[in-house]
């Protein structure tokens, strides 16, 4: 059995547990992202058909929440918090510095899939603003220099390909 079948079976099991209820959509999207890592259109269509929901509705829900990722995230993920506190404390400037350094836009990955730059609304660490998360590790009271240094560290020697 291929990995894909196993993943599909796990998702099927979760949907069955919810009795293919339309109202379980959010729950199932969560599970699907846990299993697959991200939600591509094929997967969303599959879920829509299994739950007998219009595909546009499923897509609408999946894009409404910033938690759901529609593109495959890179090997290393940097998430900038754009909540009010972080924004006021200048997270935008740091984000722009990262964008410039690696030539990517927020919400995108480098072409070689090494690095992703994502944004989120408030990670609940407002006292530590501005907060940037680099591979599950939060950098509190971040500055441009610290963040860029940290990214360099997680990337190791290899500089991601720029477009």
């Amino acid at each position, binding site marked *: 059995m291929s990995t894909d079948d196993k993943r599909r079976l796990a998702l099927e099991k979760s949907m069955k547990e919810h009795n293919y209820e339309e109202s379980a959509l959010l729950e199932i999207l969560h599970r699907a992202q846990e299993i697959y890592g991200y939600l591509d*259109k094929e997967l*969303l269509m599959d879920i829509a058909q299994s739950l007998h929901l*219009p595909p*546009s509705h*499923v897509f*609408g829900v999946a894009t409404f929440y910033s938690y759901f990722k529609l593109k495959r995230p890179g090997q290393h993920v940097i998430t900038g918090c754009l909540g009010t506190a972080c924004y006021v404390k200048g997270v935008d400037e740091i984000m722009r510095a990262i964008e410039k350094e690696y030539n990517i836009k927020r919400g995108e990955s480098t072409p070689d899939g090494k690095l992703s730059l994502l944004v989120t609304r408030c990670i609940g660490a407002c006292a530590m603003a501005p907060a940037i998360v680099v591979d599950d590790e939060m950098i509190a009271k971040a500055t441009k220099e610290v963040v860029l240094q940290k990214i360099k560290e997680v990337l190791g020697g290899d500089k991601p390909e720029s477009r």
Partner: protein
Amino acid sequence: MGDAIVTLKIDGVEVHVPEGTMILKAAKDNGIIIPTLCNLEGLTPYGGCRLCLVEISGSPKLFAACITPVSSGMEVTTQSEKLKEYRKMAVQLLLAEKSHVCSVCVANDHCELQSLANELGVDHTMFERNFTKEEIDSTHDFLVIDRNRCILCTRCIRVCDEIEGVHTLDLRMRGKDAQIIMDLDNKWVNSCSCTSCRKCAKVCPVGAIYIEGEPVGHTKHKEIAEFITERRQRKCK
């Protein structure tokens, strides 16, 4: 909806309407017109455009008339200086949000947003205009969507779901990124569920969805409202 009749005052006039009626409908049935862009008789009320805001005595809040049910003894004010200011503001925000240029719009002279702006005396907007540059999707045989003119009233989504029953259209993202989409954000021609029924074009209050080569003028919203109500009643019997 019960059979009980509720008595309330709208602009000082005593009206009697069935329990559960929304203020907007109650006012309309008694000849009082409250401006609205997102509401359309026959579709589920949405409460998105905030133009039907009214004052209810005893509360400092403003209420959207299309989603506030009547209650006994309510005293509703539909016209006041304060409300006019709020409505003007809402129209200005709508005009600034996307790219509304009447002179090049298919709906010019038949646009609900335009006529409302005229009515309220909005001849400019005090907010910086966004002038969005969204791509126009004209891949469908005859239906065109220009998202730069969309005011996100969701009439098309509701008519597609509730009347046509296919739910091809929906909203993606939120806030300033919100857009009308077909299926999984596909081009219209690739939509697997669209039945090309044209209802979305007919209910669009502006020139965002239109039928290629056809003037927008003849799709007066009143006619379509009657059509929808009639269809719905026919279905219920």
